[in-house]
């Protein structure tokens, strides 16, 4: 059980959580829905005691476990060793003891994960997320919080996860499910809380609401329909569950097609040089460098791509995620490359920035570029692409039209077709 009242939290310049009160009772599954940046994860990190709130009070009964969206596993260790890491105190032990204990723990959680001696590095993404869940449940929390757990799962794995969630709740724990996928939210939750801009916007029992109402609450207006396709058949989307070889494909194309525009998946790690200025980041692909010319060019780009920045000499690392992505777009697209490879170009962006990125990709296609869009967001693929291919364990399916894809994509993503 958790009881949050009047929680506020400021991160940097933004108020991430703004006067939020929330109760989650034992035996209940509550979904926390909202766009990226709505404050869901921050609120739940406060609830789990990972970070402190600036104001308001937190009451917890028993321990709360937060399963993060990114894995906190050690790849070079086995499943059993990862589970043994949570063990307290000093002791002598052997591989065999650790593995025996691990299989007992796994069994007690009722989740299926075979052979505890396997290295985490060899596990599929779905298996890794199961291991994270086992780690959390094994600590017998009275509140279990799951942050976007389904984003890396196949439909079957999602069903299995929901079964586990229901059982945990039935055994008396409080369960919080953070997600922006509304059909899933409606399927599993008893109660749904929608956040936007750090505040709770709507709250209702699952049976009293529907996808359309929730979506409108989430974005604050009627959602737009995908625009007409005038892209001349030039956008191909590669979809799949994360970790099926997308990153390797993007890296291979980066090294092979050096003249193409490349938008990397991880923009803080691979996209920008945080310590350099916007002007310098924009000039990384230029043949020549002249500080004054580069600043003028950067000013043009800032205007053209509506980058919110104090000027061309601002550190790129100080920009918001959306504006960093615009800097990358400006660098990669402004040269009008014939080919563009965009990996997860809207991950973590708010709705406004997402729309901007989509417009840029569409207009590049209209102007004649051929675009490869690698994405785990099916909505994005269907909104943009003329052709869809599914990637599963490093292999690409045959090209599908969007209507063919609509029926076959789920099974292809799970590797069952």
């Amino acid at each position, binding site marked *: 059980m958790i009881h949050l009242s009047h929680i506020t939290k400021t991160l940097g310049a933004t108020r991430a959580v703004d006067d939020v009160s929330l109760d989650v009772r034992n035996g209940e599954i509550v979904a926390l829905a909202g766009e990226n940046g709505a404050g869901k994860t921050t609120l739940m990190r406060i609830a789990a005691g990972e970070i402190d709130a600036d104001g308001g009070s937190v009451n917890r009964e028993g321990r709360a476990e937060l399963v993060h969206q990114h894995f906190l596993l050690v790849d070079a260790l086995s499943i059993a060793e990862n589970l043994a890491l949570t063990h307290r105190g000093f002791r002598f032990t052997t591989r065999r003891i650790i593995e025996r204990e691990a299989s007992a723990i796994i069994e007690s959680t009722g989740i299926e994960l075979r052979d505890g001696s396997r290295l985490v590095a060899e596990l599929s993404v779905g298996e890794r997320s199961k291991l994270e869940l086992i780690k959390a449940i094994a600590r017998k929390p009275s509140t279990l919080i799951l942050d976007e757990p389904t984003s890396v799962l196949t439909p079957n794995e999602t069903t299995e996860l929901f079964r586990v969630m229901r059982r945990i709740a039935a055994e008396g724990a409080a369960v919080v499910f953070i997600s922006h996928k509304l059909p899933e939210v409606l399927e599993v939750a008893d109660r749904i809380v929608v956040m936007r801009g750090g505040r709770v916007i709507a709250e209702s029992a699952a049976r009293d609401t529907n996808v359309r109402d929730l979506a409108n609450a989430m974005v604050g207006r009627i959602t737009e329909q995908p625009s007409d396709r005038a892209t001349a058949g030039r956008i191909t989307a590669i979809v799949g569950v994360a970790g099926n070889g997308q990153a390797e494909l993007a890296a291979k194309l*980066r090294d092979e097609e*050096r003249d193409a525009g*490349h938008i*990397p998946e991880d923009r803080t*790690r*691979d*996209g*920008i*040089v*945080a*310590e*350099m200025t916007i002007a*310098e980041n924009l*000039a*990384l*692909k*230029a*043949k*020549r*460098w*002249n*500080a004054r010319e580069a600043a003028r060019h950067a000013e043009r780009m800032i205007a053209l791509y509506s980058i919110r920045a104090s000027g061309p000499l601002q550190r790129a690392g100080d920009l918001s995620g959306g504006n960093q992505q615009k800097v990358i777009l400006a*660098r990669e697209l402004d040269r009008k490359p014939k080919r563009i490879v965009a990996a997860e170009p809207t991950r973590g962006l708010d709705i406004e920035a997402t729309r901007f990125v989509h417009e840029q990709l569409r207009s590049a296609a209209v102007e004649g570029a051929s675009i490869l869009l690698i994405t785990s967001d099916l909505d994005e693929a269907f909104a943009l692409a003329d052709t869809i291919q599914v990637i599963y364990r490093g292999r690409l399916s045959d090209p599908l039209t969007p209507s063919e894809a609509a029926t076959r994509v789920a099974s292809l993503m799970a590797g069952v077709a």
Partner: protein
Amino acid sequence: MRRFAVAVIAAAAAIVLLAFSGALFGHSPWSLLSIVASGSVGSRFALASTLLKSVPLLLTGLSVAIAFRAGVWNIGGEGQFIVGGLAALVASRFGIVASLAAAMLAGAAWASIASAMRLWRNAPEVLTTILLNFTAIHLLGWSVNGPLREHAGQYPQTDLAHVALPEIGGVHFGIVIALAASVFAWWLLYRTAAGLRLRATGLNPNAARWAGIRVGAQLARAMAISGAAAGLAGGIELLGVTHRLFERFAAGYGYSGIAVALLAQLHPLATIASSLFFGALVTGAGELQRAAGISAGVATFGQAVVILTLIVFEHVRADR
């Protein structure tokens, strides 16, 4: 401005700590400080010898600054300095220009052994450059005892080089070359596309690779330029100061370059001021050894204190 203040405080801290360590062993800190001051800047002669020490420090400092800016751990300045001196001596019969060019080439080639090992075999350059230092030291030892030993055969040293750098008021022409090199390094790093790529690689190699920069080539290039600077330092030291080679020719200039560059916060122009400070420190420490019998190794100790003090201040700044 704050970065300048930090550097000055770090330098001052080093001096204070040196005097304090001297006091621990029964010396008067004030007399130590006055020996260091008079020995490094107290007279025309002292000033000239400080300048002479600053020249190689400036070049090895630039060597380190360029490498570290590109994210390459070149700890091999000492070895590159030595092979620079060796090449300069061998090529000195062809004139000053050829001799210094040979020094740069040799330094670059020696450093490139490390980048080749890194690119082909993924051997960490921080270790290979250090191991190449020891190799170079023994190569020099063999040269001055064997093939390059002076014709008189009396001492383990070479004959005089065929040419020498011209002098201006007690200081050889190398100072002009070193100053020009630091302006060149600044221009290269901050005014050219090649420099932009080097710096981007140093700051974030992943992003550099995604922006189409060949990261391996940047590493090789930075290492070669860095080695050339250290090699040039060796060549200038030979033609301007020692005029011959002997076993202790390098005298730690390569390692000192690390402290010089870090105090200058890896900025090529600030390296000029930083090399003057360390030049004075080394000269003053030499005077300590003569006048008070204190090991000139205190200059090395001072370099370490400067680096550690800088880390503390950077931490304080990062915390805010």
